[in-house]
Protein backbone atom coordinates (compact mmCIF):
# COMPACT_ATOMS: atom_id res chain seq x y z
CA UNK A 1 0.00 0.00 0.00
CA UNK A 2 1.25 3.44 -0.90
CA UNK A 3 1.35 5.65 2.18
CA UNK A 4 1.36 9.45 1.89
CA UNK A 5 1.28 12.03 4.66
CA UNK A 6 -0.98 15.02 4.04
CA UNK A 7 -1.82 18.15 6.02
CA UNK A 8 -5.08 20.04 6.24
CA UNK A 9 -6.22 21.36 2.82
CA UNK A 10 -3.62 19.25 1.02
CA UNK A 11 -4.76 16.82 -1.63
CA UNK A 12 -3.93 13.64 -3.47
CA UNK A 13 -4.38 13.21 -7.19
CA UNK A 14 -5.21 9.72 -8.45
CA UNK A 15 -4.94 9.29 -12.19
CA UNK A 16 -6.09 12.20 -14.32
CA UNK A 17 -9.46 12.81 -12.77
CA UNK A 18 -9.70 11.80 -9.13
CA UNK A 19 -8.77 14.25 -6.39
CA UNK A 20 -9.05 13.68 -2.65
CA UNK A 21 -8.63 16.66 -0.32
CA UNK A 22 -8.29 16.72 3.46
CA UNK A 23 -10.98 19.24 4.42
CA UNK A 24 -10.96 19.00 8.20
CA UNK A 25 -9.32 17.11 11.01
CA UNK A 26 -11.02 16.87 14.39
CA UNK A 27 -9.64 14.45 16.91
CA UNK A 28 -9.74 11.01 15.31
CA UNK A 29 -12.06 12.14 12.51
CA UNK A 30 -10.89 13.23 9.10
CA UNK A 31 -13.23 14.90 6.63
CA UNK A 32 -12.33 14.19 3.01
CA UNK A 33 -13.54 15.89 -0.14
CA UNK A 34 -13.54 13.75 -3.25
CA UNK A 35 -13.75 14.90 -6.85
CA UNK A 36 -14.23 12.06 -9.30
CA UNK A 37 -16.02 11.39 -12.58
CA UNK A 38 -19.66 10.38 -12.28
CA UNK A 39 -19.07 6.82 -13.39
CA UNK A 40 -16.91 6.23 -10.31
CA UNK A 41 -19.02 5.12 -7.36
CA UNK A 42 -17.81 6.27 -3.96
CA UNK A 43 -19.00 4.65 -0.75
CA UNK A 44 -18.07 4.41 2.87
CA UNK A 45 -16.23 1.09 2.99
CA UNK A 46 -18.34 -0.44 5.75
CA UNK A 47 -21.52 0.36 3.84
CA UNK A 48 -20.19 -1.26 0.69
CA UNK A 49 -19.15 -4.37 2.65
CA UNK A 50 -22.58 -4.57 4.27
CA UNK A 51 -24.28 -4.50 0.85
CA UNK A 52 -21.89 -7.18 -0.44
CA UNK A 53 -22.61 -9.39 2.55
CA UNK A 54 -26.37 -8.86 2.22
CA UNK A 55 -26.26 -9.76 -1.48
CA UNK A 56 -24.38 -12.96 -0.69
CA UNK A 57 -26.96 -13.88 1.94
CA UNK A 58 -29.82 -12.98 -0.42
CA UNK A 59 -28.41 -15.26 -3.13
CA UNK A 60 -28.90 -18.26 -0.82
CA UNK A 61 -32.72 -18.37 -1.05
CA UNK A 62 -34.41 -21.67 -1.97
CA UNK A 63 -37.48 -22.37 -4.05
CA UNK A 64 -39.32 -24.19 -1.26
CA UNK A 65 -39.01 -21.22 1.08
CA UNK A 66 -40.45 -18.90 -1.56
CA UNK A 67 -43.69 -20.88 -1.76
CA UNK A 68 -44.08 -20.73 2.02
CA UNK A 69 -43.15 -17.08 2.13
CA UNK A 70 -45.82 -16.32 -0.48
CA UNK A 71 -48.46 -18.08 1.61
CA UNK A 72 -47.39 -16.08 4.63
CA UNK A 73 -47.51 -12.80 2.72
CA UNK A 74 -51.04 -13.50 1.51
CA UNK A 75 -52.18 -14.25 5.07
CA UNK A 76 -50.51 -11.13 6.35
CA UNK A 77 -51.93 -8.85 3.65
CA UNK A 78 -55.47 -10.02 4.42
CA UNK A 79 -55.33 -8.85 8.00
Amino acid at each position, binding site marked *: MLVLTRKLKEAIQIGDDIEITVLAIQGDQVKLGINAP*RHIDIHRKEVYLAIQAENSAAAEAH*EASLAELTAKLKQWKQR
Partner: protein
Amino acid sequence: MNIDTKYHGTVAVKDEDIIRFPHGLPGFADEKRFVLLPLADTPFVILQSVKTPALGFVLIEPFSYFPAYEFELDEAMVEQLDIESERDVAVYVILTVADPFDNTTANLQAPVVINARKRIGKQVILSNTPYKTKHRLFPEKAAT
Protein backbone atom coordinates in the same frame (compact mmCIF):
# COMPACT_ATOMS: atom_id res chain seq x y z
CA MET B 1 -31.16 -18.22 -26.63
CA ASN B 2 -31.88 -20.66 -23.83
CA ILE B 3 -30.55 -20.14 -20.35
CA ASP B 4 -30.68 -22.38 -17.30
CA THR B 5 -32.14 -20.66 -14.27
CA LYS B 6 -32.39 -21.10 -10.52
CA TYR B 7 -36.20 -21.13 -10.26
CA HIS B 8 -37.60 -21.46 -13.78
CA GLY B 9 -35.72 -24.38 -15.32
CA THR B 10 -34.54 -23.69 -18.86
CA VAL B 11 -35.96 -20.47 -20.23
CA ALA B 12 -35.82 -18.97 -23.71
CA VAL B 13 -34.70 -15.35 -23.53
CA LYS B 14 -34.43 -12.79 -26.28
CA ASP B 15 -31.53 -10.38 -26.54
CA GLU B 16 -33.89 -7.50 -25.86
CA ASP B 17 -34.94 -9.08 -22.55
CA ILE B 18 -31.43 -8.88 -21.19
CA ILE B 19 -30.67 -6.09 -18.75
CA ARG B 20 -27.09 -4.90 -18.57
CA PHE B 21 -25.54 -4.23 -15.19
CA PRO B 22 -22.30 -2.57 -16.37
CA HIS B 23 -20.69 -2.83 -12.93
CA GLY B 24 -22.32 -6.06 -11.81
CA LEU B 25 -23.69 -5.99 -8.25
CA PRO B 26 -21.65 -5.53 -5.06
CA GLY B 27 -20.14 -8.94 -4.36
CA PHE B 28 -20.99 -10.08 -7.89
CA ALA B 29 -18.87 -7.77 -10.02
CA ASP B 30 -18.57 -10.24 -12.90
CA GLU B 31 -22.31 -10.70 -13.29
CA LYS B 32 -23.19 -8.10 -15.86
CA ARG B 33 -26.21 -9.56 -17.63
CA PHE B 34 -29.53 -10.47 -16.02
CA VAL B 35 -33.14 -11.11 -16.94
CA LEU B 36 -36.23 -10.36 -14.85
CA LEU B 37 -38.44 -13.43 -14.50
CA PRO B 38 -41.69 -13.14 -12.53
CA LEU B 39 -42.24 -16.14 -10.27
CA ALA B 40 -45.72 -17.52 -10.93
CA ASP B 41 -48.30 -17.21 -8.12
CA THR B 42 -45.98 -15.09 -6.00
CA PRO B 43 -45.30 -11.37 -5.71
CA PHE B 44 -41.65 -12.05 -6.46
CA VAL B 45 -39.59 -11.27 -9.52
CA ILE B 46 -36.33 -13.12 -9.96
CA LEU B 47 -33.26 -11.24 -11.11
CA GLN B 48 -31.64 -14.15 -12.88
CA SER B 49 -28.02 -14.11 -14.01
CA VAL B 50 -27.65 -15.01 -17.67
CA LYS B 51 -24.30 -16.71 -17.19
CA THR B 52 -24.70 -18.34 -13.76
CA PRO B 53 -27.80 -20.58 -13.49
CA ALA B 54 -27.56 -20.81 -9.69
CA LEU B 55 -27.60 -17.04 -9.23
CA GLY B 56 -31.08 -15.58 -8.96
CA PHE B 57 -32.00 -12.78 -6.56
CA VAL B 58 -35.52 -12.58 -5.17
CA LEU B 59 -36.93 -9.10 -5.76
CA ILE B 60 -40.14 -7.34 -4.79
CA GLU B 61 -41.59 -4.00 -5.73
CA PRO B 62 -41.03 -2.13 -2.48
CA PHE B 63 -43.87 0.36 -2.53
CA SER B 64 -46.68 -2.08 -1.68
CA TYR B 65 -44.79 -3.40 1.33
CA PHE B 66 -43.07 -0.22 2.46
CA PRO B 67 -45.53 2.52 1.45
CA ALA B 68 -43.38 5.33 2.83
CA TYR B 69 -40.28 4.19 0.97
CA GLU B 70 -38.69 6.90 -1.12
CA PHE B 71 -35.29 8.01 -2.28
CA GLU B 72 -33.75 10.39 -4.72
CA LEU B 73 -31.42 9.28 -7.50
CA ASP B 74 -28.47 11.62 -7.67
CA GLU B 75 -27.17 13.08 -10.92
CA ALA B 76 -24.42 10.49 -11.23
CA MET B 77 -26.93 7.61 -11.06
CA VAL B 78 -29.28 9.28 -13.54
CA GLU B 79 -26.32 9.62 -15.89
CA GLN B 80 -25.04 6.06 -15.36
CA LEU B 81 -28.48 4.64 -16.01
CA ASP B 82 -29.07 7.01 -18.93
CA ILE B 83 -32.46 7.97 -17.52
CA GLU B 84 -34.48 10.52 -19.46
CA SER B 85 -37.86 10.10 -17.82
CA GLU B 86 -39.05 8.87 -14.44
CA ARG B 87 -41.53 6.70 -16.33
CA ASP B 88 -38.73 4.53 -17.67
CA VAL B 89 -37.55 3.60 -14.19
CA ALA B 90 -38.46 0.40 -12.37
CA VAL B 91 -37.48 -0.01 -8.73
CA TYR B 92 -37.10 -3.29 -6.89
CA VAL B 93 -35.51 -4.33 -3.63
CA ILE B 94 -33.69 -7.57 -2.92
CA LEU B 95 -35.14 -9.91 -0.31
CA THR B 96 -33.05 -11.97 2.03
CA VAL B 97 -35.32 -14.93 2.65
CA ALA B 98 -34.83 -16.17 6.19
CA ASP B 99 -35.82 -19.27 8.08
CA PRO B 100 -38.14 -18.76 9.91
CA PHE B 101 -39.84 -16.73 7.18
CA ASP B 102 -41.02 -14.12 9.66
CA ASN B 103 -37.46 -12.89 9.72
CA THR B 104 -37.27 -12.27 5.98
CA THR B 105 -35.86 -8.85 5.24
CA ALA B 106 -35.68 -6.40 2.35
CA ASN B 107 -32.60 -4.38 1.50
CA LEU B 108 -33.95 -0.84 1.28
CA GLN B 109 -30.51 0.72 1.44
CA ALA B 110 -29.50 -0.68 -1.94
CA PRO B 111 -32.46 -0.81 -4.33
CA VAL B 112 -32.15 -2.31 -7.79
CA VAL B 113 -32.97 0.46 -10.24
CA ILE B 114 -33.65 -0.43 -13.86
CA ASN B 115 -34.03 1.79 -16.87
CA ALA B 116 -36.63 -0.39 -18.56
CA ARG B 117 -36.43 1.46 -21.85
CA LYS B 118 -32.65 1.26 -22.21
CA ARG B 119 -32.31 -2.06 -20.40
CA ILE B 120 -29.64 -0.86 -18.00
CA GLY B 121 -29.68 -1.75 -14.33
CA LYS B 122 -27.76 -0.97 -11.20
CA GLN B 123 -27.95 -1.75 -7.52
CA VAL B 124 -27.80 1.77 -6.18
CA ILE B 125 -26.23 2.21 -2.75
CA LEU B 126 -28.02 5.11 -1.10
CA SER B 127 -25.87 7.34 1.07
CA ASN B 128 -27.14 9.65 3.79
CA THR B 129 -30.29 7.57 4.05
CA PRO B 130 -32.18 6.20 7.05
CA TYR B 131 -32.65 2.89 5.22
CA LYS B 132 -30.68 -0.22 6.13
CA THR B 133 -29.81 -3.49 4.47
CA LYS B 134 -32.39 -5.34 6.60
CA HIS B 135 -35.99 -4.20 6.93
CA ARG B 136 -38.43 -6.82 8.12
CA LEU B 137 -41.15 -7.77 5.67
CA PHE B 138 -43.43 -8.61 8.60
CA PRO B 139 -42.76 -5.69 10.91
CA GLU B 140 -45.38 -6.44 13.57
CA LYS B 141 -43.48 -9.60 14.46
CA ALA B 142 -40.53 -7.53 15.63
CA ALA B 143 -42.09 -7.02 19.06
CA THR B 144 -42.38 -10.70 19.89
